């Protein structure tokens, strides 16, 4: 694998590759040898590292998209969006708000648990 990020100050393997290496060890090596609760916790831990690896890979694009969506809705932060919705400021901007919330939710789910999606039920 070549290091495409020529301006990056760190060496390879990069953060994502290190996290995946530990994940693979827990899942494929240690996990099958463990028993009972340890086995369960190792599965949970491997899953946590998979989430972390996906987040590292997706973060630059996700952060830019999210900032763009907040700007388009005219709010400065997630907190400001929450407060505005609670105050009714988006009651008459429902299609626009709905599309933005869908995009954010799908981006978060793609990192946290991509298998959870039920595309047949989506609009």
């Amino acid at each position: 694998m070549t290091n495409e990020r020529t301006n990056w100050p760190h060496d390879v393997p990069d953060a994502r590759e290190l996290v995946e290496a530990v994940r693979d060890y827990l899942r494929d090596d240690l996990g099958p040898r463990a028993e009972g609760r340890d086995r369960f916790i190792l599965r949970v831990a491997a899953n946590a590292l998979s989430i972390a690896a996906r987040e590292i890979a997706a973060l630059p694009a996700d952060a830019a998209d999210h900032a763009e969506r907040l700007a388009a809705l005219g709010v400065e932060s997630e907190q400001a969006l929450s407060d505005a919705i609670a105050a009714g400021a988006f009651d008459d901007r429902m299609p626009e708000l709905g599309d933005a919330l869908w995009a954010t939710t799908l981006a978060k789910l793609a990192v946290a648990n991509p298998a959870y999606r039920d595309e047949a039920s989506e609009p």
Partner: protein
Amino acid sequence: MAETDELAALLGAELDADIRDLARLSAGASRETWAFSADGDPLILQRSRFVAAPGTGVDEPAILRHAHAGGVTVPEIVAASSGADHPIGAQFTISRRLEGESIARKILRDGEFAVARERFVADCARELVAIHALDPEPVCDGLPAVDDPVAAQRATYDTLDDPHPVFDLAFRWLDAHRPDPRPHRVVHGDFRMGNFLIDADGITAVLDWELAHIGDPVEDLGWLVARAWRFRGDGEVGGLGTRGELLDAYAAAGGFEISPDELRWWEVLASLRWGVITMFMGGEHRSGTTRSVEQATIGRRVVETEYDLMLLLRPELQTAR
């Protein structure tokens, strides 16, 4: 080992019986479950180290005895104590150990539960009707009253101080579309797949009454159909059967008629409640209260409930997508 021997001696004195095979089944921060036999009878001990402040806690022995007398399928209580300074625990129940499986994955997939799966929706409806038919009067002193379930969740969400715009949207919709209130009844509060014992023939026990309260009974149906309790099963009711089948079975068992719209309102609240709980659990890890990889990972399940809410609120979102 010393703790086990000491507890065995206390149980022997309490029950005036020969205690054998005492083993801890699970342990939480404040609650433990033990299995043992007394003169050969298989029993279960559940004990808590703390008693909740007066007026906020659930008197589990009282509600379990009341439910048993009212025909709800619950284990028979052999001995119990609540609110007293008892050496076994601040609050404990000793009940008959019933046969059955509680692990959803096995119930949903193993061949031995094929008949139980067919009967699951009808079994749930029968138990819910029996719970909601209980006279609240004898137990209302030992159960908290929930008069505004939306405000109760909103208060917890606000305390967590972690903005989730989808939750704010759901709160706003719930506030504006409240169904006509039902007369308040005993509500189980955690009636879902995972909290039943099930054998080849169906439900053998309704467990985990620590969230019981007095409130709107439709809450129990909304919680039962929430996606969090489907465990990847295809059905909408704990992974088995449809929402419509549950409403029909509930009415057929002697319960009242509930419209799909009313159930949807409670399912939205149920998803939101599970979302707030997962936020809370992730927060417990971050604050250091209960640090564990399990707790931390549950924090990242919050988005699953946001996704469920987006699907449930589809008609209101009127998106062009």
